[in-house]
């Protein structure tokens, strides 16, 4: 019995040493195949158990199991170490330069005219305005007559137009949308914003463009007054340009509004103190507006004794130039991608 135990102890020592010495995963497997397989000596020694009796029987069995378990554990640990090394080596070999760029899912640029248009529309949509669009080619009737600008009216000189025929032209402003919206609503409240391209016979230069974008706004209902217009535009300006901007109204003239005002916004550069951006006036002209002329209401089927309304027209490029400090209106139509990529949707 003691002899057998001593042999076991020796086997454990020998095999442990071999396991520890195994230089590779394969060598380790070889050790296992040699010493831990079913036919290995350590397992064969189990047969000796029948020579013992009583307590010795149990003691010997326990001893073999303990040694086998300890050798198996040693083997597992060593094997795990080899596997770990293998993975580490593989990972080490797979290292990448994480500073390289990601797969290109970059968003495209957007012409700032569209950014500004969408933003303006969203502000008015949040105030409950519907978006309605007209067409670029408009009749003289809608572009002028219904806007209280009869044939040969002196103010037709203000907006020299591109004509297609005597009665067809490229709209010079988005105001015809006013008449169209009122015709559609037939006496109901009208609350619309109408974006669109407009055209005037201007030579293109830094500040003029024969094509430009405009957004018309119109609110017609009962008891609408100039103070409502001012508050609405003040809210719009603060949303668009920031809560610190103030507006002021300057008397102006449009044939389709009476009174007519020009809306100026306090200069973002100097906050109203005066600087080169605002030509030392502290304010910058931003849009035209006014109370809808009674004739315009009447021509579109709204009784001016019952209804009143306000209208405004915003030049999109002008706002975009102020917002993004763009120096030349022609840049919007050149579409240099180095220009477009600078602007993102807010």
């Amino acid at each position, binding site marked *: 019995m003691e002899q057998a135990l001593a042999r076991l102890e020796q086997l454990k020592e020998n095999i442990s040493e071999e396991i520890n010495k195994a230089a590779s995963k394969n060598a380790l497997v070889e050790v296992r195949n040699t010493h831990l397989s079913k036919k290995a000596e350590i397992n064969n020694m189990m047969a000796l158990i029948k020579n013992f009796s009583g307590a010795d029987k149990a003691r010997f069995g326990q001893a073999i199991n303990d040694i086998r378990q300890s050798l198996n554990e040693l083997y597992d640990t060593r094997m795990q170490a080899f596997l770990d090394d293998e993975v580490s080596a593989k990972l080490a070999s797979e290292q990448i330069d994480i500073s390289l*760029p990601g*797969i*290109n899912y*970059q*968003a*495209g*640029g*957007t012409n700032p*005219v569209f950014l500004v248009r969408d933003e303006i*529309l969203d502000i*008015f949509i*949040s105030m*409950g*305005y*519907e*978006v309605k*669009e007209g*067409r*670029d*080619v408009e009749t003289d009737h809608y572009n002028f007559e219904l806007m209280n600008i009869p044939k*040969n009216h*002196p103010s037709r000189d203000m907006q020299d137009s*591109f004509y*297609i025929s005597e009665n067809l032209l*490229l709209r010079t402003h988005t105001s015809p949308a006013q008449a169209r919206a009122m015709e559609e609503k037939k006496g109901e*409240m009208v*609350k619309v914003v109408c974006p669109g*391209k407009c*055209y005037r*016979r201007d*030579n293109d230069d830094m500040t003029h463009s*024969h094509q430009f974008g405009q957004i018309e706004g119109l609110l017609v*209902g009962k008891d*609408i*007054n*100039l*103070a*409502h217009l*001012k*508050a*609405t535009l*003040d809210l719009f300006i603060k949303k668009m340009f920031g809560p610190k901007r103030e507006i*002021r*109204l*300057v*008397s102006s*003239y449009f*044939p389709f509004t*009476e*009174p007519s005002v020009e809306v100026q916004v306090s200069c973002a550069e100097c906050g109203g103190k005066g600087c080169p951006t605002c030509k030392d006036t502290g304010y910058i002209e931003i849009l035209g507006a006014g*109370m809808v002329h*009674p004739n315009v209401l009447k021509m579109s089927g709204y009784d001016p004794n019952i209804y*009143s309304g306000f209208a405004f027209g915003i030049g999109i490029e002008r706002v975009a130039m102020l917002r993004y400090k763009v120096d030349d209106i022609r840049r*919007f*139509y050149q*579409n*240099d*991608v*180095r220009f*477009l990529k600078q602007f993102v949707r807010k």
Partner: protein
Amino acid sequence: MKVSLNWIKKYIDIDDIAPSELADRLTFAGVEVEAVEKLSTATKLVIGKVVECVPHPDSDHLSLTKVNTGEKHGVLQIVCGAPNVKAGQKVIVALDGAMLPGGKISKGLIRGVESQGMICSMLELGVDAKFLTADQIAGIEVLDDDAVVGNENVLEYLGLDDTILDLKLLANRSDLHSVLNVAREISTLYQREVRLPRPNQYQAVKSSFTVLSKTPLCPQFSGRVIHNIKVETSPSWLKKTLQSMGVRSINNIVDIGNYVMLLSGQPLHMYDLDKLPKPELIIKDDYVGSFTALDGKEYDVRKGDIAITSANQVMCLGGIMGSLASAVTEKTKNIVIEVANFAFDAIRRTSSRLALASDSSSRFVKGINPYQYDEVMGLATDLIVSLCKTKQIEQTVTYDARQVDQPPLISTSVSYINNRLGTRFLQSEIVETLKRDWMNVEVLNRDDIRVGVPAWRIDIGGEADISEEVIRILGLDKIANTLPSLQVTVGGYPKDKKQINLIRRHLTARGLDEILTYSLVKAEELDGFRILTKGESHRLINPLTDEHEYMRLSLIPSMLKVASHNIARGSKNLALYEVSDIDTTAEATTRLGLVLAGSDLYHHQLSEVPYSFFHLKGLIESIASLLGIKEARYSFEKLATSEQELHPGRSALLKINGQVAGYLGEIHPAATSKYELGKNKVFVAEIDLPVLLSLENGQTAFKAFSRFPAVQRDLSLVAAVSVAAQQISKTILSVDRIIKKVDIFDIYSGDGIEQGHKSIALTITYEREDRTLKDEEVNAVEKAVLEALNKKLGINLRT
């Protein structure tokens, strides 16, 4: 309109108001002052007398002068380069330190001789050359003998101590093309008195001259004959006044006409009485013939033009320009003064047809005070009498067919005005304000008022106008900020706009740049890419340039110009899109244009994929999937039309319900060079959005998917090259309902495949919703698939 403040000051006291403050006040009241300019900004000037003038010792064109400038500055030595400088002249001297428009004057050596100042010309003081004679431009200004040596108020002496307001008048305030009315406007804003000129009454003899209008285009015409006048140079006060208003002096008679026009806003015309064939002026609108105007050019006169005739010869094109034949010259002795009203639209028509405009026609076109002819005739008569010392005046003869003598009264109320403005002005405030504004106000009761509008305010026609007058005078800063309290409304975009915005966001997220191009194009840009075009292009009848003459028929040419612009600047990889309306003679639609050039920088420069037809097709399919449009509802078909701008083998039509909804393809090499697109391939697509957006995305409820496993089987087939992949997929799908999907995973032709054929490998997915498929079932269907492929498309299994 440029207005001299010195002239204004003749009628209203405003010396205590700074010009810049006046400009602000006017601007806020709707009379925009664009600029406040001094007529001359020169400083440190003095009047001197040249006491000695000898040639400069070291120059052949300079003179060395000694100029006495009075006690304060003494005798100065000045080198002068003007050819006309002479001893004994009284001259303008700019002293050391003087600022002239051209720069600062300093003492210094000129060719070795000290010069202590400069003798000035009018040009050097800042006077526009158009007011100066050739001598005045070439040399120094030689002053009259009455000039006082040592006088330092030189600008005042010269009439250059004036400030000019440059008014940018809006179309409604045509009345302000009159110095008197500007003075009235200032009086309204500052509540000050105006001293109006009162014409004298004359002992005039009865006139035998006849005036008659035979057309409603001239409702009123007055003529006055004045004999024994003398045409000569105007006195300096008149010259200076005109000059300050930017008008050149011609002679006393012409200048008087201009002066009175500037003062009153009413154009006048002067005829040489002796050159009229008959002592009559008959106004007609049916004259047909020709006419030689003052400018020496011949113009044709048609029906509808206002012809002022004498013995049926045109003496004047009413309100536009007189004839050369009846013009006032130095020899003129007797004149007829015309003060008339003409229909603005007739003048506008004639003036624009003949491209002939004058100060007079522009005033008529803008609108004038129709009821001041008597007063204007009086002002002109006064000046002629005082300048020509004549006493031979005939009575004014007038034709006036108008019924109404006064503009109508406007009834309004305090409540109307306050409701429109959102204000709470008292009746007394409103009444007082309107009275300041030259209106007659009658208070009817505590609310209602009746307003008589002055004749010159032709812009005021209704109560809304009255409300504007109140607020522009009392100040728009009186308007409160009150948001309207209305019933709640739901705002938003119409459905198609929402979908278009979705597509735009999608394409932007996909990395495409959104561009904006001009709708007006040149003729050549109408050619090509017209597959979707219906109707013809709208052509402008009055284009500014042929670059922008036609409304475009396609977005692609404009977009290719943008691509070319960018490629030329080194941006060769481009992915662009634009959404824009297209209006032709036959349709009003909205298009989406796509342009791809160069490579898709899939992993930036590490992995570039050259753009191909399939990038475009993929983008279009992605839009369809975004909108929930199933593949079965649209198809790509080979381009049957011969579209020369596209590669015939790499282009397609997008069809929806058999209707062409778009096209896509590679640009033809010829078009690549035409549009200067560089070496890289360029791909374009254009889609008619209304057709695409008309498809409803039908599914509204969840549909359960099968709980049972699908079976996938691969097939390797050989087909003729001409058989399209889509034909194969469709054929397979049509064989049995258990076939759910066909995915092509390899296409090959070359070694091992018969010439003119290709090998296609694909996976077929079989599935049943109600149970697991059995092998035999799938085998049977697969067999049927092979039979169908063979029968319909001549396809065999690859062996």
